[in-house]
């Protein structure tokens, strides 16, 4: 399944790339793409693992870009 996360105030393109890379390395993530321009992150993963992944992804985002608000759509 695919989940869209809105990353409000994502201001640094380089950080967007870092977030994308880190989330892609999480266990059970099929594919993650961060669109800097639309400020959206799309995570493709198994439904059962999704909640855990979203929690981890939030941690990653907070670590790389503390100013970003993380909202699951």
């Amino acid at each position, binding site marked *: 399944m695919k989940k869209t996360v809105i990353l409000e105030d994502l201001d640094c*393109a380089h950080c967007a*790339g870092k977030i994308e890379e880190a989330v892609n390395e999480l266990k059970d993530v099929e594919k993650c793409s961060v669109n800097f321009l639309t400020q959206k992150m799309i995570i493709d993963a198994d439904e059962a693992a999704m909640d855990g992944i979203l929690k981890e992804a939030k941690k990653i985002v907070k670590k790389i870009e503390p100013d970003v608000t993380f909202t699951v759509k």
Partner: protein
Amino acid sequence: MTKKLKKRLYRIIAGAVCYAACMALEKLVPVSNNVLLIAFLVTYFIIGGDVLKGAAQNIIKGQIFDEKFLMVIATIGAFLSSQYPEAVAVMLFYQIGEWFQSYAVNKSRRSIKDLMDIRPDYANVYNDAGELVNVDPDEVSIGTTIVVKPGEKIPLDGEVIKGETSLDTMALTGESLPREIHTGDEVISGCINLSGVIEVKTSKEFGESTVAKILNLVENATAKKAEAENFISKFAKYYTPIVVFLAVALAIIPSVITGAWGKWVYRALCFLVISCPCALVISIPLSFFGGIGAASKAGILVKGSNYLEALANAETIVMDKTGTLTKGQFAVTKIMAVNESEQRVLAYGAFAERLSTHPISKSIMAAYQQKNGDMTIMSSNEAVEEKAGFGVIACKDGGKIAVGNEKLMAHVLGADAWAACKEKYLAGEKALSEGTICHVAYNDTYWGFLLIEDQLKEDAADCVTGLKKAGMRLVMLTGDQKGVADKVAGQLGITEYYAELLPGDKVDHVEKLLAEKSEKGRLIFVGDGINDAPVLARADIGIAMGGLGSDAAIEAADIVIMTDEPAKITTAMHISKETLKIVKQNIIFAIGVKVLVLILAALGVASMWWAVFADVGVAFIAILNAMRALKLK
């Protein structure tokens, strides 16, 4: 301007004023060094407080190659070497540069939003009490009747069950002429209703509707990255650590040798300022997004940055004939009459075919209606006998009209008579191979034939000329007869074409052409999305024509042209080439300036001012350049 940007702007202005005051203090009033240091430090905190905070947070998390952290090191270094004004100024200019960068990003985000402003906000439906209410398009189920008033967007795909209007399809197709809509027509979500109130019975849910599909497609297009983007991500990964490492080396090695620590540490600090690859990391994806946005404004949907990039390297273009270069609509293009007037050949032909719904029959009826206008004789109820595989035989005024192929003629006239007839009237007739022929005979006399042909699209010739001018190898493939292909190719000036192909043969031809092109060159296949999914998939770039409303085409192709215009292919290629030009300019400009300033800083020519320009100034200029891609046509 957003609230956050405004706040930052005010802080920058306040900081700039304080900075000016500090400079005045230094120049005009004799104060001690400590007072000066305190004044500059206060200003420094006003300007760069958030940068310091961010840097501190990042160190705690172990992110040492962060831009903020590097900027703080550089400025603190300047303070330690007693360059107070420079330290504050560098922070000030860094903040100004960052502000402009955010402003530019914001602006491009807004233009992208405008571009995607085709999402309908609500649908008007009748509630249980029969009143019209607004609901979220997501909640409307299939088969619901919705009302669309003038000025509103059509929220869901469906069929018009009441009313007439004209629609603005600009946002979807780039086509500026309104489209006339009558009861019974299909309408597509995302179009704007211009004139009349219509009632639409929905045929799809919102998620499956055209507008949702298009939005999804454009938004996700940048997930498929272009080679240039991958290059930049890789470059960014190595660039920063290398520059930081060089900075450390520059600070230590020459200093140990010469003993002049202050001088070399300052130069090393300049390196740190230049070490962020932001200019590239932002501007390259932005250029591609802009190019994709510009294309979708013109009614061309590109499914990924990689396809936009590949389009610029297109070398061979393979085009299907029917539905791509021709309309796929039949029309009577020639009437040959012997023993009778052309007028009557057409009239009798139409009369015999009046009950059939076959496209060929319809085209004969249409030709008659166009010439005559009066259709009253067509409501006759005289008998019509359909002979499958041959044609029709109809009664009229006590006689019999036969309309159909050669087999039918041989049947009604007798084989010998038909052979003689052919010898006499049709020998050397070129039209016989150019399309579908309907022979007409009345009682025992051969009257002539009607030539029915598919028609060229208005802009097919422009498309071919444009592609040839671009130096492309153009090949036309068709399942149609050779005579038809000869004629179309001749009209358009296509020299390489293959006819009478089965769908499998088309794949074989594309395979062969793929083998013949150069390694870097790309092969495009253009089809109407019907029956050619395997070829669309096999080609480097599959382009489907007339995608508006055709799910199959949107699924199968890499690029979808929403209108029926083949000339949009040249538009797409133009946008692709220009986008790539912008990308190259940005890569060369950003890397060039950074490397140049690095060298000059190492030599001691460039000051920290230059370094700040090489960082944020370059990023700002690169973003502005990238935004040009949004305006391509």
